[in-house]
């Protein structure tokens, strides 16, 4: 076009990758400067056609006025920009590639044509380095280039090509492309029909041999099956309307708590199905070993609460499970059981592998959901752009109820005001004394919290020791009131649960005293304090169970320490639930009355999301710890979660209202899933692994009686297999060298760590590239500004008009 526009020669045009652009960035402002200085000479516009410009109905655009003061260069361009833009410029502007996106069908079709082409190419082969376009502006080439100035035939051609490309994609990719296209549904359906017709047509025409046709029909049938399965799954959508209600009234933050509850429920259902089908059902069908002493207490005491008594010799606990092969077709006779041939079921082995496999699958699901959630919520957290994001991205479309909408409006208004005030206000330098004072307050608060946590932990430790001695005495004393004995079992759970209930309130009070400025910092601090408390309490309890009870079961006259630990966990779970009930009905209800009547606050209290989620995580940790000792514990947890859901929903409606503070839902969800995975699941898995690996099981009960460790069950089985079938000798030696040898485990752990390190380096590199690309985008913007002003200037020169200043009133332009 314009022929003799001279560009500065330090505009380098050859680049291998965006990373090389480092050197050029400084030169843009210089470039603009130099071009502005050289305005009055050089430029000639020989081939620039201005004839089509109309004289009278020129549309003008009120130019933007910049407040940027970074360089004089920009101010000089301002001088140009403060002009009227001619229709020519406007025409060029309006057909710029970036402006035509989403505007017309033609542009969309072209864009997706390119995308499908790229997808096909990517799927077929990896592009080599040479294919990357060598240009200083990789954003101009690439997929958003098509303009919509194309004629009708070209659009038809593009459509043809799009249909071709779609047809050549795999079915999944095609569906994904179709769904992601921003066309109207009618057009998408038409495209799809064309693609399918074409596919059928080609199928019938090419006379594909019948096995390929068969494969084609199988794929179609599988697809139908998959859709049917998805429909079935979606019809099982648990609590869909309830969640919609809650979301409609309270917003995304509170909704995330209930969604988290539902996720935990699914984990427990999975655990329950696995252990139920593989462990409970076979054992329940087979009779227990006749040589086990079953002492059933005749009176119903506090069984449901303590899980002991009548329940202690039931399918609920570890002690019930047999350590032999279960055989169908066994008949118990006077002399012992005589078994004819039937199905044999190796109980110890199945027990061991079931628990192991359940944990493994749970681990994989957790890690997958954590990484997915992390990927969605992670963004390069720049501090700029907050206001725009707040305006466009903060309205929660799920909120339906009128009062909540009003509240949301008020919230957003407040947040916008704060942001604007922050922008306007100078960065306040607090006097040193005040800063020191605040630091002192924070340190004091932390000392108080950590101190109270420590005190709590010590209290639990000494109290459990005391109860241990107490039980020891009772066990040796013989006759004592059974009811009191059972009630004393509940002492430690009650104490722990009450600490769990009261201390977070104390932490909240301390945080209120500290007066945090930003609500997100407050959230993180309170989550970390609560987490510390729960982790330490659980740590002490695990030490007590595994270190004291399990290692010296004779002290408590326990035949079956695993059953006892299972019962303890059952009690803890139940007490946790009861205390949550009490907290919800009395705590929230009474607090609302108190705050409305005594404190005379207009608004109801706010639902404390973080605290409730941590409670859920704590309960789930207990369930995971207990699966080994009590295979039916997931069922208890399922019942507890279902009841909790309805209870919290009712309490929410009665006592709470939507929060006034912003809650970054996706970040918080990521944090909760991470907390579920890392301290909670990992801790439980470590405990269970430790138990299975090193602790000696009870001699006289359970599936692992007589073995040195539970782990030996697998080893013995392998050895048996090798003994029976000499060909499988390699399996035994593989087991001995690989699974038992710690060196192998260290090596594999080391390899994993190295792989993780590499991946983290890749992510770092990608982050750097993203930052560079952001800078590039901004520089592109500068380029555009520059080119537009040059264009305008060229036009002005041609017309020979002198530049005029901006008019007063702002006139909008609307160019089609």
């Amino acid at each position, binding site marked *: 076009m314009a022929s003799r526009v001279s560009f500065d020669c330090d505009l380098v045009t050859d680049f291998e990758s965006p990373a090389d652009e480092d050197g050029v960035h400084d030169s843009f402002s210089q470039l603009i400067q130099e071009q502005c200085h050289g305005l009055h000479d050089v430029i000639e516009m020989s081939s620039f056609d201005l004839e089509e410009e109309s004289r009278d109905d020129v549309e003008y655009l009120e130019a933007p006025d910049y407040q940027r003061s970074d360089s004089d260069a920009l101010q000089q361009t301002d001088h140009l920009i403060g002009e009227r833009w001619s229709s020519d410029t406007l025409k060029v502007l309006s057909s710029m590639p970036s402006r035509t996106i989403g505007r017309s069908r033609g542009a969309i079709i072209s864009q997706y044509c390119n995308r499908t082409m790229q997808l096909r190419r990517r799927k077929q082969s990896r592009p080599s380095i040479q294919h990357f376009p060598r240009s200083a502006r990789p954003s101009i080439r690439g997929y958003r280039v098509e303009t919509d100035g194309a004629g009708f035939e070209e659009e038809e051609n593009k459509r043809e090509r799009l249909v071709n490309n779609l047809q050549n994609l795999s079915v999944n990719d095609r569906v994904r492309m179709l769904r992601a296209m*921003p066309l109207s549904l009618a057009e998408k359906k038409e495209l799809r029909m064309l693609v399918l017709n074409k596919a059928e047509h080609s199928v019938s025409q090419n006379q594909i041999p019948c096995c390929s046709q068969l494969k084609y029909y199988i794929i179609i049938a599988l697809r139908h099956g998959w*859709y049917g399965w998805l429909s079935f799954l979606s019809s099982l959508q648990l609590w869909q309307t309830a969640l919609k209600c809650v979301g409609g009234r309270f917003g995304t933050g509170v909704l995330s708590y209930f969604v988290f509850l539902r996720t935990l429920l699914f984990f427990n259902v999975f655990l329950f199905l696995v252990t139920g089908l593989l462990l409970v059902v076979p054992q329940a069908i087979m009779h227990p070993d006749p040589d086990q002493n079953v002492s059933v207490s005749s009176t119903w005491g506090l069984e449901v609460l303590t899980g002991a008594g009548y329940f202690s010799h039931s399918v609920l606990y570890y002690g019930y499970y047999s350590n032999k092969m279960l055989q169908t077709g066994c008949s118990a006779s006077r002399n012992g059981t005589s078994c004819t041939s039937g199905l044999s079921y190796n109980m110890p082995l199945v027990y061991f592998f079931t628990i192991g496999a359940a944990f493994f699958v749970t681990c994989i699901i957790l890690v997958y959901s954590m990484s997915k959630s992390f990927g969605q919520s992670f963004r390069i957290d720049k501090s700029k752009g907050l*206001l725009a994001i707040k305006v466009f991205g903060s309205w929660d*479309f799920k909120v339906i109820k009128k009062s909540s909408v009003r509240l949301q409006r008020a919230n*957003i208004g407040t947040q916008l005001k704060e942001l*604007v005030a922050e922008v306007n206000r100078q960065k306040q330098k607090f006097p040193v004394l005040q800063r020191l004072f605040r630091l002192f307050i924070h340190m004091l608060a932390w000392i108080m919290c950590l101190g109270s946590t420590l005190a709590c932990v010590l209290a639990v430790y000494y109290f459990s020791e005391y109860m241990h001695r107490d039980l020891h005495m009772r066990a040796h004393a013989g006759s004592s009131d059974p009811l009191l004995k059972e009630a004393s079992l509940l002492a430690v759970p009650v104490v722990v649960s009450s600490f769990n209930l009261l201390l977070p309130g104390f932490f909240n009070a301390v945080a209120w005293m500290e007066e945090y400025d930003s609500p997100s910092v407050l959230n993180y601090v309170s989550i970390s304090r609560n987490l510390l408390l729960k982790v330490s309490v659980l740590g002490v309890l695990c030490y007590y169970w595994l270190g004291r009870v399990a290692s010296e079961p004779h002290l408590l006259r326990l035949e079956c320490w695993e059953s006892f630990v299972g019962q303890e966990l059952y009690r803890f779970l139940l007490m946790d639930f009861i205390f949550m009930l009490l907290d919800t009905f009395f705590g929230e209800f009474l607090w609302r009355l108190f705050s409305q009547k005594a404190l005379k606050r207009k608004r109801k209290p706010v639902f404390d999301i973080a605290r409730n989620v941590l409670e859920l995580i704590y309960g789930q940790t207990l369930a995971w710890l207990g699966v080994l000792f009590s295979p039916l514990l997931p069922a208890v947890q399922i019942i507890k979660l279902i009841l909790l859901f309805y209870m919290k929903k009712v309490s929410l409606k009665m006592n709470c209202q939507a929060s006034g503070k912003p809650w970054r*839902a*996706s970040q918080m969800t990521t944090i909760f899933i991470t907390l579920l995975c890392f301290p909670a699941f990992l801790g439980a898995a470590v405990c269970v692994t430790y138990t299975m690996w090193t602790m000696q099981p009870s001699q006289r009960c359970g599936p692992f009686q007589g073995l040195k460790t539970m782990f030996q069950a697998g080893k013995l089985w392998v050895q048996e297999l090798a003994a029976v079938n000499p060909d499988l000798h390699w399996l035994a030696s593989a087991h001995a060298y690989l699974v038992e040898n710690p060196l192998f485990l260290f090596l594999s752990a080391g390899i994993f760590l190295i792989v993780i390190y590499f991946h983290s380096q890749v992510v770092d590199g990608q982050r750097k590239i993203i930052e560079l690309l952001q800078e590039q985008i901004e520089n592109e913007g500068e380029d555009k500004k520059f080119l537009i002003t040059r264009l305008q200037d060229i036009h002005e020169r041609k017309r020979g008009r002198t530049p005029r200043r901006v008019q007063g009133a702002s006139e909008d332009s609307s160019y089609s």
Partner: protein
Amino acid sequence: MGNKQTIFTDEQLDAYQDCTFFTRKEILRLHGRYHELAPHLVPMDYTNDPDVKIPLALIVNMPELKENPFRDRIVESFSEDGHGNLSFNDFVDMFSVLSEMAPRELKAIYAFKIYDFNVDNYICKEDLEKTLNKLTKEELTPEEVNLVCEKAIEEADLDGDNKLSFADFENMISRAPDFLSTFHIRI
């Protein structure tokens, strides 16, 4: 599965499943909702693809949209004629884009259309002012509104034309991790 429905043919349902983020059951449920908005207009039998459109006034009475300040713009953005008269296809399209599974880019495109009040493919200052007024009604003073608009445009505008084109909008929205969860309506 078991019961034979006569509202859509199987091919139609397959087409809906392939082109939207809904399953068969959800499409049928959506048809139920569509029908109850205007029972006299919407036929129960869609096997012939009848050309029926429900006007804007009836659609914004849906409980999911009734209190939403952007309800008019939402419905207009998904209508073919731009005035808010939705056919069933448009109706399904609207809730599909606003569902949980729609990808970010798709949502960004339609969010841009929604906030573009004068439909000129840019979000100019007036559009932004209207958005703010709908967001906060009477919370902000006119000076504050003006300040917020200017600041927002300054932050997000990359090519310096004092308006937000789609590229600017998308770039800005990509920094908002909550966008996916807030731009979501459950149906």
